C-alpha cells in the first residue's frame, strides 16, 4: 500500500506550487521516512522472536484489517443501529489514538531529524511539509485498514448513503484522534521531561500490548450480545462524547431523521474535528517542533538532575537483598534483576501481558462450566478450581525467568566474566530469588486471599503445600533449562539444539508434580507427609543451582 500511496504522492507533487518547498527534497525525505516506517518494529506487536528484515508495518496492517473485518461482522449481529455505530466509532477513535501514541510516538518525538536533516541544505518549510505528508500517509494507511471492514459491512447492510456518511464520520474521528494525540504530547512536553514522556508512552505501549494479547480472549466473555440489542439510553453528558455525535450523524442519514438534536450532532461531527485540525496546523504543530528542539538542547541538564536525586539512599531492593541473598554475588544479581525488571521497557512489554494472562486464566479455567459468569461464581465453592489459583503464579514466574536471560544490553554481561567468581550459579540464584519475591510471592498471596474468601479455611493446607511445590517446580525448571546468566543473552538468539526435548521434559515434570497435588487435593495428611520431602529437595536444588560452574553456563 505504501508504494501505491507514494505513487499517488509523486503524481500530486507537481501541484505543490509554493516556491519555498523544494519538491525534489520533499520527495526524498518522504520516500526515506516511509521506507523506515516499514522497518520500524511496531511496539504493540513486538516479540522477542521478530526477524530484523521482516516487513513489520505490513504485518501490523494485516492484523488491523482482520480486527476491522471482525468489527464489521458485528454489524450483522447487533440489530440496534445506534449501538453498533457507537461501538464502531469508539473503536476507530480508540485504535487511532492508541496507535498514534504507542507506535507513531517514535516518529512524532524523534529528534534525530534535527541532527540529520537540519545540517543539510533543506529549508524549514520543506522539512515541515515532509513531516505533514508523512503523518498524512501513515494515518491514511491505518484509517483504511482499521475501517475497511466496517465500511464494507455498512455499505452492504445499510446502503450507499449511510456507507458514505460512515466513511466521512470515520475520517472525522481520525482527525480528532490526531488532535487529541498532539494535544496530549504538548501537555506532556509542557509539564514534564523527555524521559518522563518516554516512560508515559511505555505505559501506553504496555497497555496496548496487554489489550491485544488478552483482549481477544476476554472481550467475547465480557460482552453480552443480547444486551447489545437493547436500546442505549443517552444522558445529557453522553452528548459530550465525539463517538455519540458521529453515531447520531450516521443515524440521521440512515433514518432520514433531521430533528434539532441530530442536526446539532451533524454540525459537531463536522465542525469540531475541522476546527481542531485548523488549530493543530496553525498553533500546535509549530509549537510542537519548537518544544522538541528545546527539549533536545536541555536534555543533558535533566539527565544530570536525575542522576543526583536518590543518591546514597538504601532502596527497598537493597534491603530485601540484604535479608534474602546469601552471598555478595547473589545480592548483586538480586538487585540487578529487581531493578532491570522495573525499568527495562522490553521486559515490561513482554512480561506484563503474562500478568494480564493470569486474569484470562481465571476466566478460562477457574470460572468455567456454566452458562454465565455469575452462575459459575456461585458454584465455585463446590469445585476444586482453586488448584488453578495455586499454580498460576508459577506460570508468571517461569515466564519472567525465561525473559530475564535476554536483554538488548547483553554486552554489559562482560562484568560477570571479569569478576573473580568460581560458581556463576550464585548469579542465577540471585535472579531467581528476586523474581520469587517480586512476582511470585505477591501474586501467590493475592490469589490465596481470593481463594480463602471463596473456599474458606479448607484450602490452607493445599496452598501451603502448593507454595513449596511451586518453588520446587521452579527450581527443577531452572536446573533443567539452559543456564543463562541474568540479562546476558542477545535477544533473537537462536535456541540451542535439544530445546524441544528439554521443554517436553519440563512439561512432564510440571504435569507430574501438579498432577500429584491434584490426586492429593484436600487430603491434608498426605500433603504434610510429602511437604518435608519437597523442602529437602528444594534445599538440594538450591545448592545445585548455586554451584553451577562456568562450563555449564550458556553464552
Amino acid at each position, binding site marked *: 500500500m505504501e508504494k501505491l500511496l507514494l505513487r499517488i504522492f509523486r503524481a500530486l507533487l507537481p501541484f505543490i506550487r509554493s516556491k519555498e518547498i523544494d519538491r525534489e*527534497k520533499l520527495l526524498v*525525505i518522504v520516500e*526515506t521516512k516511509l521506507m523506515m516506517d516499514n522497518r520500524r518494529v511496531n511496539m504493540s506487536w513486538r516479540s522477542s522472536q521478530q526477524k*530484523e528484515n521482516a516487513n513489520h508495518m505490513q504485518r501490523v496492517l494485516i492484523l488491523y484489517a482482520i480486527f476491522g473485518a471482525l468489527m464489521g461482522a458485528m454489524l450483522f449481529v447487533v440489530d440496534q443501529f445506534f449501538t453498533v455505530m457507537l461501538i464502531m466509532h469508539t473503536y476507530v477513535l480508540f485504535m487511532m489514538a492508541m496507535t498514534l501514541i504507542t507506535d507513531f510516538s517514535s516518529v512524532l518525538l524523534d529528534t*534525530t531529524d534535527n541532527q*540529520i536533516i537540519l*545540517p*543539510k*541544505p533543506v529549508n524549514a518549510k520543506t522539512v515541515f511539509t515532509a513531516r505533514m505528508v508523512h503523518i498524512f500517509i501513515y494515518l491514511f494507511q491505518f484509517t483504511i485498514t482499521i475501517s475497511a471492514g466496517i465500511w464494507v459491512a455498512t455499505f452492504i447492510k445499510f446502503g450507499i448513503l449511510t456507507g458514505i456518511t460512515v466513511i466521512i464520520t470515520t475520517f472525522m474521528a481520525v482527525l480528532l484522534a490526531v488532535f487529541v494525540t498532539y494535544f496530549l504530547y504538548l501537555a506532556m512536553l509542557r509539564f514534564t521531561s523527555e524521559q518522563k514522556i518516554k516512560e508515559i508512552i511505555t505505559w501506553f505501549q504496555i497497555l496496548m500490548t496487554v489489550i491485544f494479547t488478552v483482549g481477544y480472549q476476554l472481550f467475547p466473555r465480557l460482552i453480552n450480545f443480547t444486551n447489545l440489542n437493547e436500546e442505549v439510553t443517552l444522558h445529557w453528558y453522553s452528548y459530550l462524547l465525539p463517538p455519540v455525535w458521529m453515531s447520531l450523524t450516521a443515524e440521521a442519514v440512515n433514518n432520514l431523521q433531521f430533528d434539532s438534536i441530530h442536526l446539532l450532532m451533524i454540525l459537531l461531527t463536522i465542525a469540531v474535528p475541522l476546527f481542531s485540525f485548523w488549530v493543530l496546523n496553525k498553533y500546535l504543530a509549530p509549537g510542537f517542533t519548537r518544544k522538541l528542539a528545546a527539549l533536545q538542547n536541555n536534555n543533558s541538564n535533566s539527565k544530570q538532575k536525575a542522576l543526583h536525586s536518590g543518591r546514597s539512599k538504601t532502596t527497598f531492593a537493597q534491603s530485601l537483598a540484604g535479608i534474602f541473598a546469601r552471598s555478595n554475588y547473589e545480592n548483586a544479581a538480586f538487585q540487578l534483576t529487581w531493578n532491570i525488571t522495573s525499568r527495562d521497557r522490553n521486559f515490561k512489554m513482554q512480561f506484563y501481558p503474562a500478568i494480564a494472562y493470569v486474569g484470562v486464566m481465571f476466566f478460562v479455567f477457574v470460572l468455567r462450566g456454566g452458562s454465565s459468569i455469575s452462575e459459575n461464581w456461585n458454584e465455585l465453592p463446590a469445585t476444586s478450581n482453586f488448584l488453578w489459583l495455586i499454580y498460576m503464579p508459577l506460570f508468571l514466574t517461569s515466564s519472567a525467568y525465561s525473559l530475564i536471560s535476554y536483554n538488548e544490553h547483553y554486552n554489559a554481561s562482560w562484568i560477570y566474566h571479569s569478576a573473580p567468581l568460581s560458581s556463576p550459579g550464585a548469579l542465577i540464584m540471585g535472579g531467581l530469588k528476586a523474581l520469587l519475591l517480586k512476582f511470585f510471592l505477591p501474586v501467590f498471596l493475592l490469589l490465596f486471599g481470593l481463594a480463602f474468601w471463596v473456599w474458606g479455611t479448607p484450602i490452607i493446607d493445599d496452598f501451603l503445600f502448593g507454595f513449596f511445590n511451586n518453588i520446587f517446580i521452579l527450581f527443577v525448571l531452572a536446573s533443567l533449562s539452559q543456564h543463562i546468566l541474568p540479562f546476558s543473552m542477545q535477544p533473537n538468539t537462536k535456541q540451542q539444539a535439544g530445546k524441544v526435548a528439554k521443554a517436553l521434559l519440563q512439561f512432564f515434570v510440571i504435569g507430574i508434580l501438579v498432577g500429584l497435588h491434584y490426586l492429593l487435593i484436600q487430603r491434608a495428611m498426605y500433603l504434610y507427609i510429602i511437604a518435608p520431602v519437597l523442602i529437602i529437595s528444594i534445599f538440594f536444588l538450591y545448592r545445585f543451582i548455586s554451584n553451577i560452574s562456568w562450563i555449564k553456563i550458556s553464552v
Partner: protein
Amino acid sequence: MAVISMEGVSKQYDGNYVLTDISLSIEPGQIIGYIGPNGAGKSTTIKILTGILGDFEGRVEVMGKDVKADAIAVKQKIGYIPENAALYEVLTPIEYLHFAGRLYGMLPDTIERKSNDLLRLFELNDKRDQRMNSFSKGMRQKVLLISGLIHNPEIIFLDEPLSGLDANAVILVKEILSQLKKAGKTIFYSSHIMDVVEKLSDRIIIIDKGRIIADGTFESLKTSASGSLENIFTSLTGNSEHTTTAGEFIEILNN
C-alpha cells in the same frame, strides 16, 4: 578573504550564556583545532556556524553568506560531521548515503559511484546493503564521515570525528584531512584528543566557559605554558590540579 567570520556572537539558554562575545576570522585552506572542556561551548559554536542554530546574538558569515539570512546557501557549501553518530540506523549505508546526497542536490548516479568508492576505501563495501543497526560505533562513524563529505564541501566541520574508529581508520582520516587542506579546503576540527589537534592544526582556538581564551599557532601558544598542547590547555583552563585529584582517587581506592 575570510571564509568564516564571527563578530560579537553570544548565545544563551534560559538566561545562561553558553557563548559570550565570540569574534574570530578564519582564512581558507587551514585546519582549525577548536578545543575546550566539556560544556565550554564548542558544539554550540559549530551549530551556529553550520546554520543549525539561528537564534543567537551577533553576526556570522560563512563563505561570504550571512548564516542567519541565508542558512541554506551556507549548508550547501559545508560538510558537518556531528559528535554523536546520529544516523537512520534502519537504513543500509548505501540507502543513507543516497538520502544524504540527494538532500545536497546530487545526481543518483554520482551518489552511487562515489558511495561505492568511498565505502570500499573504508572497507565497508561488503556491508553496503546491511542495515546499520547492527554496526559498531566505528562503522557508523565511517558512514557519517562519508555522508558529510560526499558532496565535496568547501568547509568541513568535524566534532570528534575519530571517535570509535580503529587505528587504521584514524590514520586514514588524519591523512584525508591533511590532503583536503592541501586541496584548499578549510577544516574546523573540534576534539578532545590533544595530540591529534596539536599535530594537524595550523591554528588552535581554546574556548572555556563560552569565551575564547587562546587563539594562535601551537608555537605561539607555547609562550603561555611549556610542553605539549595538553599542558597549555590545562594551564589555560585552570584545570591544573589533575595530579592532586589523581592522588585523592588512589587514596579512596586504598581505603
